[in-house]
């Protein structure tokens, strides 16, 4: 489980995820090119979690309405709020990659009263992690929402002030 330089940290990150059985658990991992403490600090912030889980791509449903219940140097544990329809737990484990190559985030989640199709499971966790990575690395989430297209062609009355 050492994460010192030169060690294989992917094993560490994998073994640090509690085994929950593939039928129920959602798993995925991603690498973020930032140091571990910075990554944890950003992931801890509820406003960032809210950003990541809002406005998800089409076809991805948000099952999480999370509150942070415990933190450590390499793990955050979230649970769905008491009034949420879905009862779930989300754990994020953090491990440094060797030679300053960033941080691996491994996520695992259990939705105890809700069954997802296999494809939905992998999509949900991948989207969750990919969006966190983007937010941490760039400070924003790529979007085309609200951009112009010919699908919103202007009506004749709107064309008065055209460039």
């Amino acid at each position, binding site marked *: 489980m050492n994460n010192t330089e030169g060690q294989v940290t992917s094993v560490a990150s994998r073994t640090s995820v509690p085994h929950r059985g593939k039928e129920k658990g959602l798993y995925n991992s991603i690498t973020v*090119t930032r140091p571990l403490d910075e990554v944890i600090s950003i992931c801890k912030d509820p406003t960032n979690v809210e950003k990541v889980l809002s406005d998800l791509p089409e076809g991805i449903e948000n099952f999480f309405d999370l509150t942070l219940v415990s933190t450590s140097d390499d793990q955050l544990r979230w649970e769905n709020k008491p009034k949420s329809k879905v009862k779930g737990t989300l754990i994020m484990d953090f491990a440094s990659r060797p030679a300053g190559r960033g941080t691996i985030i491994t996520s695992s989640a259990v939705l105890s009263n809700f069954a997802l199709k296999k494809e939905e499971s992998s999509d949900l966790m*991948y989207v969750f992690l990919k969006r966190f990575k983007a937010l941490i*690395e760039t400070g924003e989430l*790529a979007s085309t929402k609200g951009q*112009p297209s*010919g699908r*919103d062609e*202007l009506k004749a009355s709107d064309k008065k002030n055209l*460039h």
Partner: protein
Amino acid sequence: MKALCWEGKKEIELKHVHDPKIINPHDAIIRVTTAAICGSDLHLFNGVVPSMMKGDIMGHETMGEVMEVGPLVKNIKVGDRIVIPFDIGCGSCHHCEEQEYSACDNTNPNFMMPQKLNGYSGAGLFGFSHMYGGYAGGQAEFIRVPFVDTNSIVIPPGIDDEKVLFLSDIFPTGYMAAENCNIKRGDTVAVWGAGPVGQMAIRSAFLLGAERVIAIDHYEARLQMARDGGAETINFDDVDAIVDELRFLTGGQGPDSCIDAVGMEAHGHSILNAVDQFKQKTKLALDRPDALRRAIQSCRKEGTVSVPGVYAGLLDKFPLGASFGKGLTLKMGQTHTQKYMKPLLDRILKGEIDPSFVITHRINIAEGPQAYKNFNDKKDEYIKVVMKMQ
């Protein structure tokens, strides 16, 4: 604003749409002064790239003046004149830090689509289908540019748009294709496709030290342009077997490196190409890879095949056995445009090359829909079209 929109296979329309606005803090809004139609736009025009939607704004070769910047933009300011690369890098992920901008991890909001199709997601691209992010393109009066500090190069005053516009795509694409060949003194490079990217690859191969460049096409105007750039040429309509012809021209060895600047819509006279045509028309395949097959078969042992041409799907009858047997190096991929913009601008400013040689037609945006048809049909010796927005 006015914009050229994709309305279905072989249908481009000029439409009046809303102006773009700042969406994210690293964005900028650009007033487009000059744009171009790219050969890869024709793949969209012909409906062979999946995930286009009616109304998508076309164009990924664009330059203009910065009108507005988001609150976190640091280096670009209102009034700057910039060229915009076709691929969108975030500037912060591992790949962008390695100057592998077209592999950017963070700029494709529709990353699940290519992830499911190909197992990965690359960068978002301007005006190039929803699989590549669905970003509105630059054949419009205005364009929104995400992460503008990364996705721009400022052009000094006094240099004409036409000399620098192609820093957005075809010049870096042709240059990277030639660079991928690892050209050594005395090398012969064969280039399939003497369209705009092929023309830039020819000139770049010479810039990088090639002794001979052999261009292969069947449009006389394109072959003439290649000859003007110093290349020898082969019209593939005039030879029985291009592989044999190239072997003959290179003393039995084959070219040291081969560039496929054709991509997924190759023409040719082989039976395999006829099969490709049928499969593409019936949606059984996305690509017609005949140029790539010939490049692999022609290249000398231990040579390099470089592929700037666009491919989208699973290739049929791909000669992997020949590639393996000859120990070929295959290099390919979307161009890391941002990496090349500055050094290539320097070459332009020094007078080593003027990429505007490739322009054959100048139009207004209103003439865009017809220009697409003409370019696709190779009418009137169309090679490269640039358009003004007014």
